[in-house]
């Protein structure tokens, strides 16, 4: 297959919040910037963000970035790097005001300042009382952010390559990153984007789980490409889950349902939360409820044909209460669970929401590895990157803050890097061959494994063996199962071999990324013998700072693990020392 080459100063993969923010920084400086995206930029998964952007503007009362920093570190269960967290919290007000000036229609107070809503986990005076810190645009914050940033990028002459899928990184013998290979869906043509700097902003890979709130595009593409190029992945065992997503669909059922009197039942019709939390029962905290649900399923008391979900019963509340207080929930249950909660319980299951780990970076968005520090020419931001701001658990509203701050920061770092660079580094002779070989293997495969079946197998394995609450026997079996899938992964096949808009080919290529993301997650989770933040183990129920106050690094080659220290030293203020995380 012919490989044409296009030259840019910078190539950015992904056009969600962080990709667009980084692109704007670079295009505004006059650089020639290519942004590749599988879907139209404003249909990136950032559009799903409703909660807001966390920033200590202090518009609703006293607030400070130090308090935001404390909340973020505590939220991370002390696994977050405190230099990166200080950086994000200090820069948050600046990027929010910038976004306002870009045209973002934030909700406002009567005096014209940005309105800020309360959000769980955010406090004033180091945990003393709740604070209103989330800047939002009604329930369409992500949508408004994408539109504001996209329009500014059009003005700044960013070149968008829409419906292009990045395939693999291009590195030279010294390990420098020289760009990516990418497939144009319209033509099936593969192009090598030769760049002085390459920035990944590909979002999370939540589709590795059977039950996920993530859109179908979230297949861990950046993480997969990095892993195949020899870059380790950091803290991949940490995924945020929500206790009640519609089983088999992933759409969230708000926790308000239990607040209004909804109760959880196992297959025997038992209100099992009475055993796990005798006083508060179904109103126990998110982690307690998730753990109880996972235990019921693991011990064979799950409902349904595959005994794989829990029932959320509302019918006892009566149609008036359901219609009046929970109208959206009835709509969701009918549409996505095919049940009317006035008559039947809703099947629910703990559901994956957010990836805390990813491609290891520092707070400047430079990809850093133990072997030699910063990888020349390679940057990552947003959910695919791990700075590490969120550590073992992300605080609500900090995902959008991360997008803006890290997108801008990575953009600024690229600008600085390019000042010292002359022309493009020369491409090695075999540049792009890894991606071409992957495509040739797929096209040449006769009677191969069905992509949908293998994806389903990965997702079910991750859900059952590495879900919200993790058991040692299940993890051990999970590692075996995921490793055993390697053979099938090498034989995936597609029946449709056409070049033009071949969605089967795209889904097969995505599956490679899903597999890398899943395997890293499973191996890291089995190795981490403690419970911290979102990583919750039945056999090691406590956090163990003596042994495990460190980041995991997973290498694809040899399924190898290494570890690196958590940076407990902020940039300018005193360290916030680890203590129990109690709310």
């Amino acid at each position, binding site marked *: 297959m012919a490989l044409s080459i296009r030259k840019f100063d910078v190539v950015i993969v992904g056009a969600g919040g962080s990709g667009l923010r980084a692109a704007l920084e670079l295009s505004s400086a006059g650089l020639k910037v290519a942004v590749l995206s*599988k*879907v139209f930029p*404003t*249909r*990136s*998964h*950032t*559009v*799903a963000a409703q909660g807001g952007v966390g920033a200590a503007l202090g518009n609703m009362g006293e607030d400070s970035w130090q308090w935001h920093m404390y909340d973020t570190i505590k939220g991370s269960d002390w696994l977050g790097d405190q230099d990166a967290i200080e950086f994000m919290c200090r820069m948050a007000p600046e990027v929010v005001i910038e976004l306002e000036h870009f045209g973002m229609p934030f909700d406002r107070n009567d005096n014209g300042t940005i309105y800020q809503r309360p959000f769980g986990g955010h406090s004033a005076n180091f945990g003393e009382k709740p604070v209103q810190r989330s800047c939002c645009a009604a329930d*369409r914050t992500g*949508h408004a952010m994408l*539109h504001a940033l996209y329009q500014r990028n059009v003005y700044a002459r960013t070149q968008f390559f829409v*419906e292009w899928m990045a395939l693999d990184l291009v590195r030279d013998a010294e390990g420098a990153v020289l760009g990516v290979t990418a497939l144009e*869906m319209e033509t099936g043509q593969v192009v090598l984007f030769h760049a002085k700097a390459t920035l990944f902003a590909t979002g999370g890979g939540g589709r590795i789980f059977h039950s*996920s*709130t*993530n*859109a*179908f*595009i979230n297949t861990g593409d950046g993480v997969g490409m990095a892993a195949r190029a020899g870059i380790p992945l950091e803290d991949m065992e940490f995924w945020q889950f929500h206790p009640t997503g519609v089983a088999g*669909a*992933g*759409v969230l059922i708000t926790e308000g349902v239990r607040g209004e009197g909804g109760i959880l039942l196992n297959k025997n019709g038992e209100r099992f939360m009475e055993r796990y939390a005798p006083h508060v029962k179904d109103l126990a905290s998110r982690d307690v409820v998730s753990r109880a649900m996972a235990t019921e399923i693991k011990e064979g008391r799950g409902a349904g044909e595959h005994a794989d979900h829990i029932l959320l019963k509302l019918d006892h509340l009566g149609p008036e209460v359901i219609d009046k207080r929970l109208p959206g929930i009835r*709509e969701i249950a009918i*549409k*996505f669970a095919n049940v009317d909660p006035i008559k039947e319980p809703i099947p629910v299951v703990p559901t994956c929401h957010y990836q805390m780990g990813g491609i290891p970076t520092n707070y400047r968005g430079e990809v850093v590895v133990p072997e030699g520090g910063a990888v020349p020419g390679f940057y990552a931001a947003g959910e695919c990157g791990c700075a590490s701001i969120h550590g073992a658990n992300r605080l609500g509203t900090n995902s959008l803050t991360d997008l803006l701050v890290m997108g801008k920061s990575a953009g600024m770092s690229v600008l600085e890097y390019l000042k010292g660079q002359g022309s493009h580094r020369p491409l090695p002779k075999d540049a792009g061959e890894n991606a071409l070989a992957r495509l040739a293997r797929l096209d040449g495969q006769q009677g191969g494994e069905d992509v949908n079946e293998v994806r389903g197998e990965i997702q079910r394995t991750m859900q059952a063996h590495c879900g919200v609450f993790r058991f040692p026997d299940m993890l051990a079996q999970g590692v075996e199962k995921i490793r055993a899938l390697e053979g099938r992964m090498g034989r995936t096949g597609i029946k449709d071999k*056409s070049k*033009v*808009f*071949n*969605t089967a080919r*795209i889904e097969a290529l995505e599956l490679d990324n899903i597999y890398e993301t899943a395997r890293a997650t499973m191996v890291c989770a089995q190795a981490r013998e403690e419970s911290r933040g979102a990583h919750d183990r039945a056999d090691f129920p406590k956090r163990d700072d003596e042994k495990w106050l460190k980041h995991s690094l997973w290498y694809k080659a040899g399924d190898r693990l290494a570890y690196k220290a958590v940076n407990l030293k902020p940039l300018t203020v005193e360290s916030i020392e680890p203590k129990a995380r109690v709310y």
Partner: protein
Amino acid sequence: MPVDERERERLRWRSRRGLLELDLVLQRFWAPPGPEIDAAQGRALAKLLAMPDNDLLDLVMDRVPNADPALEQMLVRLKAA
């Protein structure tokens, strides 16, 4: 006259959305053996898929009325999916 195979594939890819809810609705719409789509329906679907995710979801969930009669037939099919 049905839309040609490549146009079908293009529409199928554009059914990949930023919102999971739309992914699920459209996944059902495309479920094997796949929907029959003629040229006019293809144009209507393309127009719906070009809408912002939140606006399309509001239409599909009946939260707002549809103002474009040319889209109605396709919208009814999506809602029924």
